């Protein structure tokens, strides 16, 4: 049985950086030695709105990368789109603000033991955790190719420093305002064939993950994806963030994306049944 991330703790953590990057905010939060426990794919759950807030639920964000020894000690970086009332509140916090954070949560991307070829695919700000992952994979000796996609240029998140760990980066927008016109999933099939890709790592909207899985199904390529389901608690007690997953015998059960995910083996998810009654 899957259990909550054994490193998870609830802490009061100081926001030490808040910078606007295109349509997103890059938040740097001081988390001390817990940074050592965070792995690419893990997420955090943060209280929003302050003491008298009418927002009762935490907001979950993927950790985009951690630094174990910045000038603030251990820090983590989050890339946040100020869309809803909770993320807008968070992005409006200034440096020095103290946040109530539960960290680290959820599963992490599996790192190959051999230096294999890998493909990283990100949609929108789903690309954020892929840069931290790329650094780990690069250090393992893997060849890392990355595809990023979004509806339009402003929604692409691709920091300059993040590109160091990547052998190639191609960008796709649906309106052609940046990179190539088209969807990020368009070139995957041929890349898998041409580059001898062993693992595809993906992070982004559920339809994108499902589309990638369709491409990897029937091949030897492993598809590790970080799923997105709306969560109330992030710690496994509310049962709202479930999705249908097959076990080895093919039996379906509704697993919590906060405990058994967010990183899952894409071939085990019953994509056609997401949002349905089993």
């Amino acid at each position, binding site marked *: *049985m899957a*259990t*909550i991330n*054994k490193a*998870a*703790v*609830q802490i009061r953590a100081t926001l030490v950086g808040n910078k606007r990057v295109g349509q997103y905010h890059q938040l740097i939060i001081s988390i001390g030695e817990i940074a050592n426990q965070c792995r690419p794919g893990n997420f955090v759950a943060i*209280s929003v709105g302050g003491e008298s807030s*009418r*927002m*009762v*639920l*935490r907001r979950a964000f993927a950790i985009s990368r951690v630094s174990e020894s910045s000038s603030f000690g251990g820090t983590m970086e989050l890339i946040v789109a100020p869309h809803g009332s909770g993320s807008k509140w968070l992005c409006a916090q200034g440096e020095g603000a103290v946040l*109530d954070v*539960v960290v680290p949560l959820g599963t992490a991307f599996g790192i190959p033991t051999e230096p294999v070829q890998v493909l990283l695919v990100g949609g929108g700000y789903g690309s954020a955790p892929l840069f931290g992952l790329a650094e780990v994979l690069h250090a393992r000796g893997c060849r890392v190719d990355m595809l990023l996609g979004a509806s339009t240029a402003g929604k692409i998140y691709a920091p300059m420093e993040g590109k160091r760990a990547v052998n190639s980066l191609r960008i796709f927008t649906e309106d052609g305002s940046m990179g190539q016109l088209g969807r990020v999933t368009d070139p995957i099939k041929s890349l898998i064939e041409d580059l001898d890709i062993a693992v595809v790592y993906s992070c982004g909207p559920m339809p994108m993950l499902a589309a990638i899985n369709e491409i990897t199904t029937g091949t030897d390529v492993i598809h590790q994806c970080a799923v997105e*389901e*709306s*969560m*109330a*608690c992030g*710690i*496994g*007690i*509310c*049962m*709202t*963030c*479930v*999705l*249908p997953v097959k076990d080895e015998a093919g039996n*379906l*059960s*509704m697993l919590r994306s906060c*405990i058994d995910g967010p990183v899952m083996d894409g071939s085990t998810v019953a994509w056609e049944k*997401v*949002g*349905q*009654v*089993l």
Partner: protein
Amino acid sequence: MNELDFSTTIGNAWFPSPIFTASGCASSGRELAQFFPLHDIGGVVTKSIMSKARTGRPTPRMAETPSGMLNSIGLQGPGIDVFIANDIPYLIEQKARIIVSIAGETVEEYATLARKLRSVAGISALEVNISCPNVDNRGLVFACDPDASRRVIDGVRRAIGGEIPIIAKLSPDVTDIVAIAQGVVDAGADALALINTVLGMVINLDTMRPHLGGKTGGLSGPAIRPIAVRAVYQVHAALPKTPILGMGGISTGRDALEMIAAGASAVSIGTASFTNPTALVSIQSELRELLRLKGFESLQGAIGCAHRPVGDQQ
């Protein structure tokens, strides 16, 4: 100053603290145990369990609302046999005091569940959830029908009565909650759990359709607290000898004391654990401190004190 007596009783079950988890808001305790020892709180009320494994309702299952949330889980769970084999031993190992919550689709299912639990050691009390709002047929919400409520509790009493206290969990979505409460107490309930969530709906303006996969959901959180306080007050006034496990939007020690003053012998913390995984322990210490500040020597002295004449606090 004497040490505050923080203990409470529900029927023949004794608890060192009146702060419990709320059914469906703590799973079976494993996750919250990452944040505090389960032994430190009054008790763990487990997620309502049914006879068979159940996958629940489709997603989206959640919508945040002002000072609250809607949930539409639909009693997802592993079924009673797996629950007894996996979850009860874990909770016993953690030295948690266990209140098992059961739910059924028929009067017979409740009785069968109670019979299975009768032979399981280590359970302090049984919560009979006759008020889950997330069922497809509103006719199945037993707690909306005085006769059906009585029949369920009567069947459970025959199966397990006298062994451990039976706590009937009621819905606020009725015209006269006192009549329902009276009926289940007459049928053999030793205590009452008030209140389950309030049926609600959110329309998604992107799709212009109900947001939840199950269309309707149960509203919880501070938004419903006054409804819960009112229900506890009304029922305690009518049935002052029946212990009440009060719940609905409690997120601070102050909120817990309000519910206790209305007549609750203990309180359950649900949605607040989603906001804050250590809510149970902070509410517990806040309540303890507040009782001391107000000059109470025991929790018992505060139960139902809102019903006493002004000037006669204790």
